[in-house]
């Protein structure tokens, strides 16, 4: 598992390998180049001012040293060395910039790849997957897990090399000056490294606890804001304040506890580090007594100690982050390794006129043993209006999902213009059979964009036209910004009926030969419902429409009515036939009639009683 985790993590770096190599190279190069900076100063101090040391002890390229020797005058030499130091730093600066830039490119390249492949894959995952998925968790995998992986690969990983490089080159340069000093300066290393690993491990857990308490506090705010009517109506404002204060305090107290440890760790850590300086300085005082160190040496050493003692304190954090990154990359991979729905797809793209045949179709969800549809057979002819009626849970909507291959039937055949549905491309069939859902989704953009969705460019006139057909035009014109009104959180909140009508309008615009209403006029009153459907027929005489409904008045008008009971077709026919045939439809119809007359009687009876 761990091994696979590593592969999951590093596979994101693979397409950007040259960049990664460059960053890793720079991460080592940077401390290497820096380790020569003190040598310039040492040269000035020892060679120029003190003039008491041999050149061999200056670790600078010999061409540079012989170049410096050309300058007899001490001050000219200092100016030249100083100027070359500035140039050297500028040279380092260029590498630093390149490092930063390439690192940014690398990080963003990884993030770009991850975001796009996650988005694409999620779009292509099956309907069944989405039905069972937890949105919040999925989004977290797409955003914060993505960030964790990206910043580990582009940040902590090179940082690790930098720490190792800084430590190594610092140590080597010190050893060249004096081996004893170098060894003495190592004293702090085991303490720093172990304490940093322990500390970061400990603090991470504490952080999680603090975050949890913060989340609890946020919940209180959220419940208060969302339940403002209840709070106010019961006059419990003071209680709410006390409740919030308690949660807020709990969060603050745990945070204080955390702060206490943080302060203690960093205080102690600085203390230990400065003790290291003390130790190194003390030893060097003894060394200088024996004439083993020069002023330039100690100045350089003071700079080298820094290379050894400061960066290693970050090791613990990197180790912790590594674990986090592996977990995050595994979570991402979990989503990406679910096969998408187009793994199983057809290739045929037949002309769709509306001839649909169900032949002994059965369906059940993979994780269930109960068939939702059992042996369902019926035919729909091009241009027909067919109603499917049944009780809740009778399998009506399953038929809609099967027809556009959101779900796959286990046995039987569905023929679309004579072609087996399983052989037809999913996208093709969906582009030919338009499904309007009961609870359609509107995208966070303008009303106009929501209707014309699926088209990049379109005559506005056509949009208005379909909006009129779907009886939504007047509603839209009633909004302050008309068609430019934003939908959703940042815009207006539309009623269920308005949403349904916008969904109808956009389906109309796509001009598909078959339209399926999956209970999608449920929030529209009966009169408008009828008006919309008449207008539809008017517009396109060849349109085949399938209406899934529980409204008997809607079903009544259809050319053919399919009655569904417990996943089986119990009757097929026209209203005139079915209303005379014993069964569910007749029952419903009778109830409708009975209720109507009962109602009239009720009212009239009431009047007579007056």
């Amino acid at each position, binding site marked *: 598992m761990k091994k696979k985790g590593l592969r999951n993590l590093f596979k994101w770096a693979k397409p950007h390998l040259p960049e990664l190599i460059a960053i890793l190279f720079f991460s080592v190069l940077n401390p290497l180049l820096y380790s020569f900076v003190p040598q310039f100063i040492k040269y000035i101090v020892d060679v120029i001012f003190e003039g008491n040391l041999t050149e061999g002890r200056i670790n600078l390229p010999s061409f540079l040293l012989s170049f410096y020797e050309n300058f007899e005058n001490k001050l000219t030499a200092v100016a030249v060395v100083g100027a070359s130091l500035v140039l050297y730093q500028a040279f380092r600066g260029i590498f630093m910039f390149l490092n930063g830039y390439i690192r940014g490119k690398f990080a963003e390249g990884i993030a770009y790849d991850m975001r796009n492949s996650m*988005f694409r894959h999620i779009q292509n995952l099956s309907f069944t997957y989405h039905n069972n998925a937890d949105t919040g968790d999925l989004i977290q995998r797409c955003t914060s897990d993505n960030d964790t992986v990206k910043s580990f690969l582009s940040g902590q990983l090179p940082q690790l090399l930098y720490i190792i490089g800084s430590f190594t080159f610092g140590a080597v340069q010190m050893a060249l000056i004096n081996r004893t000093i170098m060894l003495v300066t190592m004293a702090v290393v085991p303490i720093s490294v172990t304490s940093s690993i322990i500390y970061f491990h400990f603090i991470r857990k504490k952080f999680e606890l603090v975050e949890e308490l913060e989340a609890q506090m946020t919940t209180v705010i959220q419940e208060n804001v969302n339940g403002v009517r209840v709070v106010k109506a019961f*006059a419990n404002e003071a209680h709410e304040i006390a409740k919030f204060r308690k949660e807020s305090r709990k969060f603050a107290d745990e945070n204080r506890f955390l702060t206490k440890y*943080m302060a203690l760790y960093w205080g102690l850590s600085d203390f230990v580090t400065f003790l290291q300086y003390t130790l190194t300085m003390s030893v060097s005082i003894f060394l200088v007594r024996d004439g083993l160190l020069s002023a330039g040496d100690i100045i350089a050493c003071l700079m080298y100690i820094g290379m050894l003692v400061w960066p290693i304190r970050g090791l613990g954090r990197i180790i912790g982050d590594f674990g986090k990154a592996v977990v995050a990359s595994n979570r991402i991979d979990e989503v990406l390794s679910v096969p998408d729905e187009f793994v199983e797809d057809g290739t045929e793209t037949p002309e769709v006129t509306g001839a649909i045949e169900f032949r002994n179709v059965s369906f059940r969800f993979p994780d269930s043993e109960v068939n939702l549809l059992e042996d369902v057979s019926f035919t729909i002819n091009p241009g027909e209006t067919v109603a499917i009626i049944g009780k809740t849970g009778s399998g009506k909507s399953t038929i809609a999902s099967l027809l556009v291959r959101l779900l796959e039937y286990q046995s039987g055949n569905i023929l679309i213009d004579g072609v087996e549905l399983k052989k037809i491309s999913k996208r093709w069939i969906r582009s030919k059979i338009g499904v309007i859902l009961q609870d359609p989704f509107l995208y966070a953009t303008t009303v106009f964009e929501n209707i014309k969705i699926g088209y990049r460019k379109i005559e506005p006139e056509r949009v208005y036209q379909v909006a009129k057909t779907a009886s939504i035009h007047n509603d839209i014109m009633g909004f302050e910004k008309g068609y430019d009104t934003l939908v959703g959180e940042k815009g207006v909140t539309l009623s269920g009926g308005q949403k349904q009508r916008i969904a109808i309008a956009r389906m109309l615009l796509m001009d598909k030969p078959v339209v399926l209403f999956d209970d999608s006029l449920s929030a529209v009153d009966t009169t408008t419902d009828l008006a919309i459907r008449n207008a539809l027929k008017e517009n396109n005489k060849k349109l085949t429409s399938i209406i899934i409904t529980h409204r008997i008045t809607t079903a009544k008008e259809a050319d053919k009515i399919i009655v569904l009971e417990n996943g089986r077709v119990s009757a097929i026919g026209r209203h005139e036939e079915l209303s005379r045939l014993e069964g569910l439809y007749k029952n419903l119809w009778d109830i409708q009639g009975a209720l109507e007359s009962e109602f009239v009687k009720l009212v009239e009876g009431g009047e007579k009683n007056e």
Partner: protein
Amino acid sequence: MNSFEEFDYSSEKFSFGIWKKILKLVFKRKKYLFAMFLFVTGLAVLDTLYPLMNSYAIKTFFSENPDFSKTTFFILGYVGISLGYLITVWGFIRMAGYLEIEVGFDIRNEAFRKLQILPFSYYDRTPAGWIMARLTSDSRRLAEIISWGLVDMVWGCFTMLGILIVMYIVNWRLALIITALLPVLIAASIFFRKKILNAYRKVRKINSKITASFNEGIQGIKTTKTLVIEEDKNEDFNKLTTDMKKNAIRAVIFSSLFFPTILVLSFIGIAFVLRIGGGFIVNARFGFTVATLYLFVSYTMQFFDPVMQVAQILAELQQAQASAERILSLIETEPDIKDTPEVEEKYGTLLEPKKENWEPLEGDIEFRNVTFKYQTGETVLENFNLKVKKGTSVALVGETGSGKTTIVNLICRFYEPVSGEILIDGRDYRERSIGWLHSNLGYVLQTPHLFNGSILENIRYGRLDASDEEVIAAAKAVGVDDFVKDLPEGYDTVVGEGGAKISVGQRQLISFARALLANPRILILDEATSSIDTKTEKLVQEVMLQLMEGRTTFIVAHRLSTIIDADQILVIKDGKIIEQGNHKELLEKKGEYYNLYKNQFINEGIEKSIS
């Protein structure tokens, strides 16, 4: 609602007014503030002292004629400085941390307190997300920048000052060079910091768009699939991520240029120090030694860190100003519905009520020439008159969005009439306190809002001082007890966020128990449209009737039985009352009510037979 988009207020100019108010909040925690100040100053002193110490060591031990008699003194000195770091670092982290925590705590509390006082209308026009962001991310950010920003600011300024002072004392000629470098460093730092922050602001904006796209992609998956617009959506998303990449890399360019620039600048300073200082040594002027040269070189290197810090803080403060402004706008919002000082004098405030002065509420309600319009100017009620005798019920009937809720909101004094008056027991309800009214009010919501806590706590929400026995009695009265008995943890069962762990019907019953416990004189029932199973529905019906007994009740009604039984029925359409009367009278009119009732009657009948 567009005005609530995350725009960054004015914020281009530094506003002293805003920060003065914020500092006032910080000064409430003087103790931490001063302690932090002390520790940070100590740290700055140590940072100045340390190179000086090294310099003396070099002079004493590494010069031509070393003096080793002071070895012990120096070692002790170093240990002392190390101890100093232990104390100051420990102290300032602790104090700044505490300051951050407590300032955050204060800001949140103040904002939350204000939220409780603000009237319902505020919530109507302010998106919940906006409010949430103020109490979470904004207050967190503000507290953080204030405390740690102060640390960096104080440390940066004092370190710079300390270094400059020592340098001027040691050799003012050389110190002048560094002083000359200072404005260049500051200007460069501020330039880069601003660029970087602006670039990242853009990046953050795109980032939130990306998150929103993911959300939409997941939530709207079925629609996207059925419309076959996956490719369009992918393309749109790719545009976003490409934009993100472009902008993020741009931001990176600025930040990677920043450090090298400062580095080269400071080494130019060092080169000058070396050359001029070197001159002093060679010419043996001003007592300049190699040790002094070390001191200046190391000070110059040390110098750019505080400059960068201060520049960063200045830039971040600019950014945080937007957060500060938004929080202050919440804290300073004046409630547009509040009690007059005279009323507060007599009946107390919302948070400190004087219950002893509260008269009992009988429940006679009268609307007298009430006109109401929303701030947008849309008139909802005009010269509306209605008399409701205590203990009777009114059903409000009409389509969603017709304005039924407005009447309810007026009765609850969530809103107040623009003209005319609403009388409770014959007196304008504004003559008595909001708390008085609300304490006599029971509200049962369409989709009951439960708090994440136990069933017992949720019922007790109706009357906080009720004993366990009273709570259970209320629960028994409305049938909560029947299902609680079957729960393994009984009344201690936690209902989950929004009551998610129990069924809708059970949530409704709990909200009835809550209202019953409150024993209100006025009851508002916002009836559920959502269907619950027939058995529960029957139970809910019975309980509702029981609850209405003897109370003045307003029902936003959907079910026939409740409508028929109401003493008065108001039919509302497009914010106007179009029919008013009892069931019989309205049926006779054969108008809107007749049609509504007929449809409802048949739909309910069929639904019953089909489900």
